[in-house]
């Protein structure tokens, strides 16, 4: 085969009379079927005059281009393969909220509100840091005048009375005050946990709920998770696992999951909650109308109070585990014992 090939000079070189044939025969590779690309690229294809251009011509005078792929083509393929392995390996870890840098819905005002808080690391929780202590109600510039602040008391020792645990996102800011009114009226104890900006993904990938259940031993759990994920695409597929984990942490304790107070149609969070807990454990808030704070999302204090009145009715009549919720005559405006969690990036 080798002998059947001969090299021709390209037009430019022919006109300039270079003795290309002699030179090229010296350069002819041992295997003329496969030649390094730079040595055989015809001028019209290469567009690069810096390379030594030549054609291989067959007996029929038809040019045949023989070239190898450059080595870096395979190097890059190998690199992509390695990256894919890396991607798959590490991507699994992204579900861990401490690993992911996914941005959460937390308005600037909420950040401002949290700025004065003292933080301490708590290795028992799978979150970056937590802030513990009672806080003044109100976020997003909500008027907090007249709201008293209770002292920091761990009331978990009093096990005689029914004990409610209100745990969830920032919606608890006002709900807890009204719920506390009910607790005082009905002789219950209550604790509240607020994790700003939290979603089912955060609560569903750590042991926070079981941690607080073990700490406070509630007889009834009220969940308020979902407001920060109204618009997650394909949420049912992505977050069902988290919701399951949340519910599993509650165990046999009676509970109700309070749906988020939609300000727009959601992409499925309400449906997800309903699917996971059933009608008798789910209070739908999406069709209630609210007056909103200036952030457009959180109900105002008075609106949140009315919201909790509706929830109380549901707990007393429709929930699978009924609980007496006599309506309080007065607003005590007392902040219940509260733990505030803040995720720090």
């Amino acid at each position, binding site marked *: 085969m080798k002998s059947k090939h001969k090299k021709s000079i390209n037009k430019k070189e022919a006109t300039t009379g270079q003795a290309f044939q002699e030179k090229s025969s010296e350069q002819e590779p041992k295997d003329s079927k496969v030649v390094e690309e*730079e040595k055989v690229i015809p001028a019209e294809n290469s567009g690069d005059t810096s390379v030594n251009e030549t054609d291989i011509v067959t007996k029929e005078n038809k040019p045949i281009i023989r070239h190898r792929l450059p080595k870096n083509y395979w190097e890059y*393929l190998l690199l992509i393969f390695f990256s894919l392995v890396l991607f798959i390996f590490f991507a699994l870890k992204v579900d861990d909220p401490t690993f992911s*840098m*996914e941005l959460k819905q937390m308005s600037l005002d909420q950040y401002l509100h949290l700025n004065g808080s003292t933080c301490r690391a708590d290795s028992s929780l799978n979150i970056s840091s937590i802030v513990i202590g009672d806080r003044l109600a109100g976020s997003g510039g909500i008027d907090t005048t007249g709201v008293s602040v209770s002292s920091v008391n761990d009331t978990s020792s009093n096990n005689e009375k029914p004990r409610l645990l209100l745990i969830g996102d920032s919606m608890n800011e006002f709900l807890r005050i009204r719920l506390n009114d009910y607790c005082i009226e009905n002789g219950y104890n209550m604790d509240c946990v607020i994790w700003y900006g939290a979603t089912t993904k955060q609560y569903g990938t750590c042991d926070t709920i079981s941690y607080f259940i073990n700490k406070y031993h509630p007889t009834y759990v009220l969940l308020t998770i979902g407001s920060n994920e109204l618009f997650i695409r394909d949420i049912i597929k992505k977050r069902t696992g988290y919701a399951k984990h949340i519910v599993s942490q509650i165990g046999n304790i009676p509970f109700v999951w309070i749906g988020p107070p939609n300000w727009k149609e959601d992409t499925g969070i309400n449906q997800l909650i309903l699917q996971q807990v059933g009608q008798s454990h789910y209070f739908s808030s999406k069709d209630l109308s609210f007056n909103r704070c200036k952030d457009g999302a959180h109900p105002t204090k008075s609106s949140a109070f009315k919201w909790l009145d509706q929830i109380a009715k549901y707990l007393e009549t429709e929930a699978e585990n009924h609980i007496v919720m006599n309506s309080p005559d007065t607003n005590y405006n007392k902040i219940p014992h509260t733990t505030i969690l803040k995720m720090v990036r």
Partner: protein
Amino acid sequence: MDYKQILHDIFVYRPDAPLMFNSPEFMFFGILVLSIYAAIYKNKFSRTLFLFVFSLFFYYKTSGIFVLLLLGTLTAVYLLTRLMSRCEGSGRKWWLASIVIVVLGVLGYFKYANFFGENICLLLHRDFHHLDILLPVGISFYSFQLLSYAIDVYRKELDDEKDFLNYAFYITFFPQLVAGPIVRAKNFLPQLKKDIVIRRSEVEIGFFLIMIGLLKKSIFADYLAQYNDLVFDNPAGYSGIETLFAVYGYAIQIYCDFSGYTDIAIGIGKMMGFDLGINFNKPYQSTSLTDFWRRWHISLSSWLRDYLYIPLGGNRKGKIRTYVNLLITMLLGGLWHGANWKFIFWGGMHGLGLAIDKIWSKITKNSLKGNRIAQIIGWFITLHFVIALWVFFRADSFENAVFILKHIFSPFSWSVMLTFIETRKLFVVLLIAAILIHAIPSSRFSQIEKAYVRTPFLVKAVAFILLIQCIIQIKSSDVQPFIYFQF
């Protein structure tokens, strides 16, 4: 591990997870395709057939059954073009008209039926029931590509392609199929007939573009999008300064998203030995709106120029007609982006801006050309005009866009600026970094490209792995679809 489920997820269309360049599935297919391609690319028929089949599969993975619509439309246009090429005179015109009707008919049904139906019923004071129509991904792109092919053949600027496989491959070539660039047949088809030579430098540049594209899309665009989405979904919940940041953020997001996609597409093409042209050239460095449209989505703006503006008369029929033509072209350009009044308004405003720009150039008789201060003022006005109009592009509705623009000024307070920077550090860092990278002049950028080529492979490999690591770190709960997929 359920291997059956994994295989099903990889090979079967999932509406919730369309195949995208920045997904691990695409990396998997990329390795597979490039490996097979390496073995067969020297054979024209094999490589064309293989890439055509893969392109159809790629489209199936992004749009499911609509792959049949794509095949049907391109076959119809192929046959009609073949018939058209055999005719002269009015017959030729009629064949072209039939092609335009077919292509725009399909596009119109899938993209505009509800929009026009709703507006016509509104005018007639009648109720309109929305038709349950899904929009096939990339339909606007391939429709324009089909039209340009047919019109070029009609104008005899291009011979009709007799080889169906070559023609179908040109329309469906996967890197440019769903979001452009809108490649012209006269630039692409000749490449199919030549022997492909994949050169070391092209592989390097191709991979460099892929890296840049991933950086733009998966880091800049996707991270900025997370905050921008919060603000655009609930603008009332944010202060003026927060809204302003989101508006700037969106300008960077849409550029990084779309140009990132294009970079990846061009990079993949280059690695396979194909040239897809360029689609962006530092658009936010433009000193006038005319300049902007020479730098932004170049393949679309040149398409609109060649197949709409010039046939309308361009600037050959007097000043007023020129301005009217500009307005019509940009109005239709806006409509091309989406069936919504906000897009039409967006296009109309750009048309108006272009007309004003032309008038201004006439008044000043280009005397300000080269004047540094005039350039800076021109750049500032152009940039903010473009950014303000992006709000209409992104907002849910026209009313919401107006609200957002007003909202920037109403509760505007500089005092929260520092707090914002403090709380949204990464957002601000990425915003500034994107602006600085964009400010790099083109000449310097090609130097960077050359420096990249000279860099030892090990360094590049480490850089790529770091990039992947950053993508994993920053990625949100799902892979964000490319913005231009919806068009």
